[in-house]
């Protein structure tokens, strides 16, 4: 704890098109907790015409906001962003700098760390301080099978990217906080590749094996009409539809959508199994999924043995409201672009 015991903790406020990524609020929550024994939480907010976000950052735990407003920062590009952050770190010498492990954070954080020659841990799932006030960073490796605790004893800032969802945001409340506008000095050229187009939509109709999300249904779906719920949920999540043998035999699903011993083997980020009992021939095809959510009204369904999240309920009471919720969420995201 340098500088007279006041620990300076920075959180990168990630926004695209003026919309703040939720992970930044989660990081503020964590930073506030880390600062509870004496420290200040600073949100670093680069962008253009994004001052309005500052209020939300403060209400979620930032003691101050360093706002870097410049047209050249309007759309994220790695060179101007890393030059800016590197310069700010050199000027202000924070102890800790946290960023979300998002597409942007994963690219930007290592570049900043290399610029200021400090350590960086990736995709952290937990953060804490040791007795000497050093940041302990818990990182998964080997597909989550190995968990390492990493520290950065000699170099500052201690940098980490953190998995979205791993930390909890504080409930917002009206708080006091300062907003400083940082002078932005950037070269006029050599700012790297220029962004010419941004498409904000999920790719549709990915083949089952390549889809990041698979929504699979089984015999329990009951009818062709109900099967449309499976299709709708899959398409909202930008995923593919999978099936066990019975829906294929019934003609609700296609042969090529079958998962398991005689069908396809999938390893999506998220598998949602609905109305599936979970016999071995199906499970072998999906057990490699990163996350498994199973919904079945039978509390003894075998699939629950292989699930991370278990919902014992009639899917007809869960899926339609879930679809509505996701639509609302997507609408909200769409309107802010």
């Amino acid at each position, binding site marked *: 704890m340098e500088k007279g015991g006041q620990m300076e903790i920075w959180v990168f406020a990630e926004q695209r098109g003026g919309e703040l990524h939720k992970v930044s609020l989660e990081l503020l929550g964590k930073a506030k907790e880390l600062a509870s024994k004496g420290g200040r939480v600073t949100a670093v907010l680069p962008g253009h015409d994004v001052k309005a976000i500052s209020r939300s950052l403060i209400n979620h735990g930032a003691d101050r906001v360093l706002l870097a407003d410049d047209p050249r920062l309007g759309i994220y590009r790695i060179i101007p962003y890393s030059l800016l952050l590197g310069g700010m770190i050199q000027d202000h010498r924070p102890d800790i700098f946290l960023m979300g492990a998002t597409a942007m954070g994963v690219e930007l954080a290592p570049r900043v760390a290399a610029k200021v020659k400090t350590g960086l841990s990736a995709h952290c799932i937990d953060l804490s301080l040791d007795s000497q006030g050093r940041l302990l960073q818990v990182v998964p490796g080997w597909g989550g099978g190995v968990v390492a605790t990493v520290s950065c004893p000699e170099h500052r800032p201690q940098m980490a990217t953190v998995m979205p969802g791993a930390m909890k945001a504080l409930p917002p409340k009206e708080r006091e906080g300062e907003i400083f506008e940082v002078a932005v000095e950037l070269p006029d050229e050599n700012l790297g590749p220029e962004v010419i187009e941004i498409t904000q939509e999920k790719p549709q109709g990915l083949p089952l094996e390549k889809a990041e999300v698979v929504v699979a249904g089984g015999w329990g779906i009951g009818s062709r009409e109900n099967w449309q719920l499976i299709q709708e949920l899959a398409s909202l999540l930008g995923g593919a539809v999978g099936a066990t*043998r019975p829906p294929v035999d019934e003609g609700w699903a296609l042969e090529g959508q079958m998962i398991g*011993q*005689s069908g396809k083997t999938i390893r999506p980020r998220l598998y949602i199994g609905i109305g599936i009992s979970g016999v071995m*021939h199906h499970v072998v095809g999906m057990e490699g999924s990163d996350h498994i959510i199973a919904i079945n009204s039978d509390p003894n369904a075998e699939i629950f043995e292989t699930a991370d999240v278990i919902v014992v309920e009639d899917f007809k009471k869960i899926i339609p409201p879930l679809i509505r919720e996701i639509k609302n969420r997507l609408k909200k995201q769409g309107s802010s672009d």
Partner: protein
Amino acid sequence: MDFRFSEREEMLRKSVREFAENEIPPKMEAMEKTGDFPAELLKPMADLGIMGVITPPEYGGVGLGYVARTIALEELGRVCGAMPMALQVHHMGCAVINDFGTEEQKKKYLVPLAKGETMGVVAVTDPTGGSDVVGMKTSAELRGDKYILNGRKCFITNSHNSDFWVVIARTAEGAKGLSAFIVEKDFPGAKLGRKENKFGLRGANTGELAFDDCEVPKENLLGQEGGGLAAAIKTISETGRTGMAATALGILTAAYEEAAKFASERPLYGKPIAALQAIQFYIAEIYSQLEICRLLCYRASWLKDNDMRCDNEAALAKYYTCEAAANAAKKAVEIHGSYGIMREYAVQRLLRDAMVTIPAGGTAEIAKVLLARAALAPFKKQK
């Protein structure tokens, strides 16, 4: 002696394994359903080098030889037995033309085979049966500058997937009266007969060829007139039997892997069934046979690559590996319990496929006759 595979051979194996694991499974359901070979894989397999693995580079192949071929066939067979079955016959077609063909014939026929534009076929078996080659009836009569073929060939692998076939037919009486011909399917009087409906190795087509006053130009005689029996025997006993052995070896490997994997995962009384000694004995037996058969298969191929006699060794490898594959597949089905008889599980296919390797390319009995002859030869008294 050196029993290790070279770095080159290990890379070959890795390359085929990756190809087989990615490209074949999506085709297997259709293969099981229709019994047809996935012709769309010919070109990718040619690009990889499998189609021309024994064909010399001057005729479009890669000329790596028989150990390399056995590695490729084993790896394909580990995923799907029908693939090496079809390919090993394809290689027989390549070998017989390479061994007995003229320069013109090699240029004309070996190149498209190596490029995967068509598949090799060797048609020996008459409806009278395959084991009695000399008894065949299919005839070829020289009229002017053409041979006229009449007769039928049955149980012919790749029959319906090829543009031309190497056909053995009778040009004169007796064992010295057989000759080999390259017959294009578009020659007048050449016909495709029925397709067989096998219960195993379903993706490898088997069917009939019919010749009804079929006109074959004189230059399509392969080798010498009267040399047909020798060509057929050399091709079957060297290329064919090593190929059938490699096919069965792939199935055997799959049976071992399926059995060991299931036994390690399937819980019973709170432990995987692999903890039960009864299951361990099964696995040990399958594993021992796999290791033995590997040695037999690669020894025969190595002898062939080194231009040494390999007919007895190939017969031994073929006979023993096919039996072992069937035995291992049966045990693997048993280890799976009720799951073993479900279409969802691979082991039932392995059992069906392994059974089909036994009569294919020379029955077990023929192999045993050959082996007995070899075994008794040192003790035979001159009369």
